[in-house]
């Protein structure tokens, strides 16, 4: 054994990797911009290989098809309809991720919220005013999503059930649940239209449709205002409240949290409940906005939200920016798909994936530092001092 030991010492690695204490914010931001540009360049190469003019295509995507459109109001409100669920879901997920609780159940919680919201919408009397009914729907949706989250959190803290895998399973259980309601024509199934022979989700009653504030021709949806307000609320909650502080301590080190007298189990249950509650709310509000259920109602927000939260480094304002940009990409490629027949909207997934690959790789240089062993001890020491 001693022989091996000696050999080890002799051949100290030439390149060593050590952790570093954060990089300047500007550099980090530069990394991200470079990552996006690099991804767009790779995308452009792919487009050229299909004989598509990348500049033309990107122009179409980035302007979400508004150019040459006389009345883009409809487009803008459609865009907002796509943005709001993603924004709320990403914010909610960042809450759980901050605690290193891997809630990947956004899809399922969103669907449960949507189902509960729709159930409320169909059972409310027609006299209830829109604001009241949207609030009731959101609360019901939040409760449904929140309970699913709470169950996961409870199992985690009580029995140490793996939350990543459990929420993954719940996603699909919820998905097949909504598919069941969408495909089963029965007397009791009030989600479906009574007048249609084939199973078809019915439209929600008029008094439960998301109210809008009209500014000229543009109608601003209440849920949009809510989601932007949530950005600020979330920021304050995480930065300036005791509960937010507890979350970051639990996320950093559970042992420290316990030592500091924080009731870790309660913090986890509470935070995951809030996270899932918000996602459920987003689901219910999306039903109210889009006025109908659909088996693809999530539009992948549960998955995309994870990517957004991660790209934004769990910062609320960055989430607002990133979810806006990702929605431009996704919504834009959807509108562009109508013009470019050989590129469908999944091109956005491809670009999104490449961006994240580069960012994940770039993260390494933000978190770690490469030290080249020049043989002199000094350089290592310097690195440690830094």
């Amino acid at each position: 054994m001693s022989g091996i030991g000696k050999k080890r010492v002799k051949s100290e690695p030439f390149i060593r990797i050590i952790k570093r204490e954060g990089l300047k914010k500007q550099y980090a931001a530069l990394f991200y911009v470079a990552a996006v540009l690099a991804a767009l360049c790779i995308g452009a190469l792919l487009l050229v290989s299909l004989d598509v003019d990348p500049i033309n295509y990107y122009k179409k995507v980035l302007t979400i098809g508004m150019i040459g459109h006389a009345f883009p109001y409809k487009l803008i409100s459609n865009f907002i309809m796509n943005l709001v669920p993603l924004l709320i879901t990403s914010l909610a997920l960042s809450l759980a991720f901050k605690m290193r609780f891997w809630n990947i159940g956004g899809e399922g919680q969103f669907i449960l919220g949507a189902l509960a919201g729709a159930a409320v919408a169909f059972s409310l009397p027609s006299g209830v005013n829109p604001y009241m009914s949207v609030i009731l729907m959101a609360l019901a949706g939040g409760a449904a999503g929140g309970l699913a989250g709470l169950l996961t959190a409870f199992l985690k803290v009580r029995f140490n059930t793996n939350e990543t895998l459990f929420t993954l399973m719940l996603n699909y259980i919820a998905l097949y649940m909504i598919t069941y309601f969408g495909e089963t024509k029965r007397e009791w199934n009030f989600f479906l239209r009574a007048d249609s022979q084939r199973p078809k989700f019915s439209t929600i009653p008029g008094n439960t449709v998301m109210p809008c504030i009209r500014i000229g021709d543009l109608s601003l949806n209440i849920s949009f205002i809510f989601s932007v307000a949530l950005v600020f609320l979330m920021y304050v909650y995480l930065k300036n409240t005791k509960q937010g502080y507890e979350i970051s301590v639990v996320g950093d080190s559970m042992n420290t949290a316990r030592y500091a007298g924080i009731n870790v189990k309660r913090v986890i249950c509470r935070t995951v409940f809030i996270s899932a509650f918000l996602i459920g709310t987003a689901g219910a509000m999306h039903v109210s906005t889009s006025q109908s259920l659909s088996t693809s109602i999530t539009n992948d927000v549960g998955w995309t939200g994870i990517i957004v939260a991660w790209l934004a480094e769990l910062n609320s304002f960055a989430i607002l920016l990133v979810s806006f940009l990702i929605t431009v990409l996704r919504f834009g490629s959807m509108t562009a798909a109508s013009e470019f027949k050989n590129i469908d909207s999944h091109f956005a997934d491809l670009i999104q994936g490449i961006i994240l690959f580069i960012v994940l790789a770039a993260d390494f240089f933000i978190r770690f530092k490469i030290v080249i062993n020049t043989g002199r001890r000094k350089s290592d020491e310097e690195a440690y001092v830094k």
Partner: protein
Amino acid sequence: MNAAGVITAFLFAVIQYNMGLLYGTVGEILTERSGSLNLGVEGTMAVGAMGGYLLGCSFDSIYAGILFAFIFAAVCGLIFAFLTVTMQANQNVTGLTITTFGLGLYFFIGNAVKASGKWPEMSPDMGFWKGASPKRIPLLSRIPVIGEALFSHNILVYMAIITAVLVWWYLKYTKPGLRLRAIGENPASADAVGVNITFYKYVHIMIGSGIMGIGGLLMCVSLSGSFEGSNTWTNGFGWIAIALVIFANWNTLYAILGTIVFGLFYALKANSGALADTFPGVLGWLKSVPPQFLSALPFIITAIVLVISSITNKKTNQPAAMGLNYYREDR
């Protein structure tokens, strides 16, 4: 169709249409045994399937297809390994990105080829088709009822079983296999005895992903390689594979059983009408089971398995270091 015919068709469907799941599961078990939770199975399978099918058709050989499916998927594995092992990126996020990216690439290539009018359609005069057609195992395939159902499949189905058995043997009885399991349980100890962790992780993540890719190719062949802009060939099986890993308790032999059990639900979905009509007395109730419930059943069962195994605190084979990156200087 007579009763025996219905049963044969049912059993055939259980095996033929679900063995893609076994590949995904075996690949994921190999990956997770190295301590990495790769949530990119769905994307990896899709990329492997697309690469394998297109290149397999252009070389007009199923073997070329298998090779390229393996290589394409292994490249996805390489990306995952590079990001999580070398770049220390979060495994959950990286895995999900592999899925997003993989599905994006699948649709991108598929749509591009389809729009250019060069999509290879499977036809009986192709070598690829001949290679992918069912091969009867002599004697065994002549057993009444089950012979036709179990021993008359294409080469990819047989390979799935062989791969599962080989991986089981590898993990249980070979030195590298034991070392790999040690890495999954306690990388620091494995490192201390001189195992090259980085090398082992890279190799096994890549081989695991490659195996998933062959599964994707099998699913593509089962659907005669017809590409639609809206659906993937893998159709969510990558996610079920992740579930099946838990159900099979990280053991590839159990994974064969698990594939058949999960496959039963899927085959029931397609065949419940025929079964209920043929055996109204015994299986008549099948008609009242919603097909969506059968689709959800693998996930429901896995969720229950997850909860029960954690409540009873029974020792599962889940690698202790699964999902955690190994950073040497944290020792």
